[in-house]
């Protein structure tokens, strides 16, 4: 039935139609948290949340036993103590972010203040390139170049022998994981900090120079201090990226649910670990077994909650800076 030309949308129609599309996005997040939590529930309930987070036994063996338990597993089949994985995650993320932050701040100061024009023209695209490289390529270089180098040249036979009754060292482990992860998250941090340093009004640093500060002092005491909200934002973003890095770390971190022992001294950095995200990727093949599925979703829930906690933490960390008049 012909009705004449199509009527254009009125503003009110447009508002709720567009709003409905925008609410789809909200729905996605709600569904994500909901699905992950519901599927993680059996594992957490069977173990008790606190016990599940704690240590106890060989987590690899526990995950392996889950595969054989069939479609209707009893509560005992969900037994898991995830502490070695959590420890590995905290270790790699924490150290990478701290080292990366220091490196990024100094690099940013270099780019903004000290670099000659030609060198800056090389460093800025270099950082952009590093940020764009896919994580699987970092993992490939790690496992085909760095890990054999560490295994053959840095780990002496004596060192291997010293821990031979507890764990095998083969090059992949804490050291390679931290080095590669730091290289992966540094470009993001540099980008944010450079932006913030560039946004400082030059009058502030000129004022510092007028009072007798040299270039470094002016930079450090004025610009970097004023850019603290950005530095916090950079750290939070890098932390979130490091937490979620699954593929590169599954290739280079040793693939053993092992808690490195600080009492081993230097050998500590050569021992294998496996962070949470890497554990998820490695167990996805077996995810049809309900016990494994629940455990993997429990890892996912842990990662989701950590990302959320990071965002809130970042916001809270920037609050006192707001009082000083810095724009957050």
């Amino acid at each position, binding site marked *: 039935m*012909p*009705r004449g*030309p*199509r009527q254009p949308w009125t503003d009110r129609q447009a508002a709720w139609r567009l709003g409905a599309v925008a609410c789809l996005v909200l729905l996605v997040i709600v569904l994500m948290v909901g699905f992950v939590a519901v599927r993680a529930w059996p594992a957490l309930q069977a173990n008790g949340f606190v016990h599940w987070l704690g240590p106890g036994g*060989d987590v*690899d*063996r526990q*995950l*392996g*036993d889950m*595969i*054989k338990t*069939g*479609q209707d597993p009893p509560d005992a089949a969900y037994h898991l103590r995830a502490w070695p994985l959590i420890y590995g995650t905290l270790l790699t993320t924490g150290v990478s972010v701290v080292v990366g932050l220091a490196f990024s701040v100094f690099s940013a100061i270099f780019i903004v203040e000290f670099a000659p024009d030609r060198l800056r023209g090389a460093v800025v695209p270099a950082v952009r390139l590093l940020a764009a490289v896919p994580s699987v390529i970092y993992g490939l270089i790690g496992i085909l170049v760095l890990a*054999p180098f560490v295994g053959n040249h840095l780990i002496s*036979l004596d060192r*291997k*022998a010293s821990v*031979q*009754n*507890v*764990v*095998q060292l*083969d090059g992949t482990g804490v050291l390679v994981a931290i080095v590669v992860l730091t290289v992966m998250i540094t470009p993001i941090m540099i980008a944010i900090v450079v932006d913030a340093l560039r946004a400082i009004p030059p009058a502030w640093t000129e004022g510092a120079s007028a009072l007798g500060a040299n270039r470094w002092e002016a930079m450090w005491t004025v610009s970097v201090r004023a850019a603290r909200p950005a530095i916090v934002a950079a750290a939070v973003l890098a932390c979130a990226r490091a937490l979620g890095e699954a593929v590169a770390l599954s290739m280079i971190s040793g*693939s*053993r649910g092992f808690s490195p022992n600080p009492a081993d001294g230097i050998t500590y950095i050569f021992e294998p670990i496996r962070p949470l995200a890497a554990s998820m990727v*490695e167990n996805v*093949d*077996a995810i*049809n*077994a309900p016990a494994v599925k629940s455990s993997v979703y429990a890892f996912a829930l842990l990662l989701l909650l950590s990302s959320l906690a990071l965002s809130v933490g970042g916001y809270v960390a920037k609050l006192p800076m707001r009082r000083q008049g810095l724009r957050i």
Partner: protein
Amino acid sequence: MTRSHRLTAAVATAGVLAVAAPAGAQAASTITISGATGSAPLVALLAKKYVKLKPGKVKFKLAQGGGEVGVQDAAAGRVTIGNAARDPRPSDPAGLVFYPIAKDFFCFDTNPANPVPDLTLAQAQAIWTGQVRNWEDVPGSKVTGTIDLIGRTSASSLPPLVQQLLLGNKTISSLAALKPSDGLVEQTVASDKNAIGFNSGYYASQKDVHAVSFNGVACNLQNAKSGQYPGVRNYYEVTRGPAKGAASAFIHWIQKSPVARKIIAAIAIPLD
């Protein structure tokens, strides 16, 4: 677009799809397979030949994951056929049917720089349970230093078989590295002088690694066929309930056709 234009477009699209759909109704049926990494190349080659012999009738979707995963996937109905590399166990889910298709043998492998001639049962047990940790304590070894144990993940059916047939039911130490596939074990053993692993006999025949005799019996095809060498495993195709339709035709082709037997004989042991 006016309303009438849009209506025409919709009808036209529906018409095209309606024509395409009946043609698709006679589509090839799809067989999904997942499971053991040991038999995966064999099944892949068989599938490739089968598709060439019967074009358009059947399509294959091949995944791996490990023998245990294959059995569980078949039991849950997520795949049509699971590749299993071990005999059926009482703890397997009910209703599974195991169709034997081939046999394979597995050896202990060491690096060519360390051609250990023989391991007795006691020596193998001592090494793999982690009691003996240095090559100096193993007679016949040509290297010194820590023994690197290269094992497989729990998704593989090979470790329980090795434990049962070559280690007198002792458990492999948790020190062993966990590799997800046969190919990786071979690569690791071939590049690490101090490594020892267990793998399909096919890899030893490629000369990348050295196969160790067990209890004085060399690990090779003749000894495996004659039964003297204990390390033999059966490859099965596992289905939930008796195989039906295209899956049944494929499995019977593997078991009966001489073309299939030739393919199997190239990289494993055919059944006779």
